[in-house]
């Protein structure tokens, strides 16, 4: 299976949200990283066929997704960033509604609904109205509906938003177990969500695909560019204007900062450390944080 994005651009008026994205995706989990407004949601909507690109097209195994119509939607699962629900529907009803929308046979739909509500930890509230759910519960219901039809292409827009740490871990397990023979794209700006489960990381910045690769490949790019430095409390302000600080903490009355950048920081007390994906993220997105 091959999902192909062919020079996709999207413009809202004068604003360029996506600027000629080309990409070929095979089975696997893709983590789409990008700051707020990078274009993640826009790209995902286009992949799902609910937003027309200004230019370019999406193809599955060589056929345009819109032309495929029902056949494309049949193998698609989508969790939108802000999705709706019907407050007066019970969780189970909502799932059965989605199941019939997705064309699941009704006995199978019932079985699958029960199973999925169990997996996302909502079986106890299956007969409660969705309107009474907390944000995290709604999000889990959203995840459950996305996989109802056992989709071959699964698009998850910030799936972990609103989930507590335990649920995040649970979610990662769920996605890993589900991933076989599927193309899964999940967007996030929380690096740790994808660090462990994504086969490929895609980094989107201001509508451009900056880079892509495995976590190893990408972190290699900043190898030797990450330092841990010990500074004086009073110097923090000065350095944070000057360098990309990934992390800072106080240890034994000393301030320790983690810096990423092309240039070696002009600090005496420093050592090179092994890079993580978070360092890479900061490396690419630092200027969004204030400087520039």
């Amino acid at each position: 299976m091959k999902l192909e994005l062919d020079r996709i651009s999207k413009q809202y008026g004068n604003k360029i949200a996506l600027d000629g994205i080309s990409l070929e995706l095979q089975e696997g989990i893709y983590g789409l990283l990008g700051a707020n407004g990078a274009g993640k949601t826009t790209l995902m909507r286009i992949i799902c066929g609910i937003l027309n690109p200004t230019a370019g097209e999406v193809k599955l195994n060589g056929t345009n997704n819109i032309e495929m119509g029902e056949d494309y939607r049949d193998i698609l699962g989508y969790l939108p960033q802000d999705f709706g629900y019907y407050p007066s529907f019970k969780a189970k009803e909502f799932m059965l509604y989605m199941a019939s929308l997705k064309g699941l046979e009704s006995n199978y739909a019932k079985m699958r609904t029960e199973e999925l509500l169990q997996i996302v930890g909502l079986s106890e509230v299956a007969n409660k109205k969705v309107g009474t759910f907390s944000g995290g519960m709604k999000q889990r219901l959203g995840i459950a509906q996305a996989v109802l039809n056992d989709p071959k292409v699964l698009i998850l827009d910030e799936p972990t938003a609103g989930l507590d740490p335990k649920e995040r871990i649970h979610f990662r397990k769920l996605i890993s177990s589900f991933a076989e023979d599927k193309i899964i794209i999940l967007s996030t700006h929380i690096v740790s969500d994808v660090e462990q489960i994504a086969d490929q990381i895609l980094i989107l910045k201001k509508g451009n695909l900056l880079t892509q690769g495995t976590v190893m490949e990408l972190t290699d790019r900043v190898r030797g560019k990450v330092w841990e430095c010990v500074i004086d409390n009073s110097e923090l302000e000065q350095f944070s204007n000057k360098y990309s600080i990934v992390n800072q903490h106080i240890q034994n009355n000393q301030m320790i900062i983690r810096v990423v950048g092309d240039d070696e920081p002009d600090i005496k007390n420093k050592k090179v450390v092994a890079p993580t994906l978070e360092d890479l993220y900061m490396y690419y997105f630092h200027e969004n944080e204030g400087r520039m």
Partner: protein
Amino acid sequence: MKELLGLELKKIYSSKLTFFVMLASLLITSFLYASPPLSEIAVDKNGKQYMGRQALELEKQYANEMAGPLTDEKATESIREFQKLFKNPDNVEISSDGEIALKEDANLKYVQPYYSYYKLINEAYILPSTVDMTFKTMQKLDIDNGANYYNARSIKISKMLNQEYEDWNFSPAEKNFWLGKTEKIQLPYEYGYCWGWDMFLKCGELLMVVILAICICIAPVFAGEYQTHMDSLILTAKYGKSKVIIAKILAAFLFGSIAFFIHAILALALPLAIAGTDGAGLPIQIINVICPYKLTMMSACVVLIITAYMVLLGMISLTLLLSTKLGTTFSTLIVDILIIFVPVFLSISETNGIWNHILLLLPYNALSTGIRDDYFAYFSYPLGNMVMDVMQVRVLLYIILAVILLPFTVKIFKRHQVL
């Protein structure tokens, strides 16, 4: 499909909006249709006033005295009786305009109780679209050779059709059409008490309440999906651009139909329950002597309900289109309300017949049968050689409207972009 339809229906009927709007429209409809019979006032021959059921009981008793076939002979006899009243010096006085008139108590005793009966007789002898509340025409009519009641009716019909109008003259085809219809009406008319049916026929416009209420309930059918962001889930699901749209449309029509008939039955049942079901089989000509439709009181009520139902179907279809096109429940309702209530403030033109022919088809006006008014009773639409009466045109128009708007709704929803 069955599940989808069921769940789409549930979305409509389980919403709070629907609950409150339906509750309100049931209450309003009940009030509007129960209050006229309950507040009906009648005065007996001694001047004693009655209200509500008692008043209706009295009216029924008086009407029954005159009930039965209104033959030429009976009309002649009744006119003679009426004229006799004026020959008794105890009954008359000279009114302010210098003419002989009945005294208050004579009027109360001999005329008022049988007012609608005398009106029916007198009406045959006056010009189309005119009124004569004191029955002067009948008072002065020469009946030495009989009253020739049905002949007078024919003459009035012919005047109606051949008269010159400023806004619209009947074409030969239209004249033939109406003559053909009036010839089919069974003579003599059967007179009797039919207050409940009559009231329902007078109050067709009040059914707008339920039509508007239904439109409010279904306004979110598509717009609600956009507003709650369910559109991205629906439009990415396998049947999100096909079956579900059909299910939504069916659910809207199904809900609308059920709600409408509950209201319509209530609206008809209330006056009938209070005023009695008497008179179902009487011809509507006893409301308007030259009315060209061959209908009984009951069948006229059925025609009114069917017409209102067709208007509803058209309005549902329009509301669905607005809902998917405009994208918010609120804007959909604003447009709906404008469409329903602007015609209320438009009036018939003295000179522009085409305007009038359009005006009578607008939703609000379409709920008025017009049968008691000569001008509206003879409203026809020539289409080439074919002529259709206003009731047929309304039914046809709203069915066509309901059907032709649907493909647009489907298309717009299918192509909806999630921004």
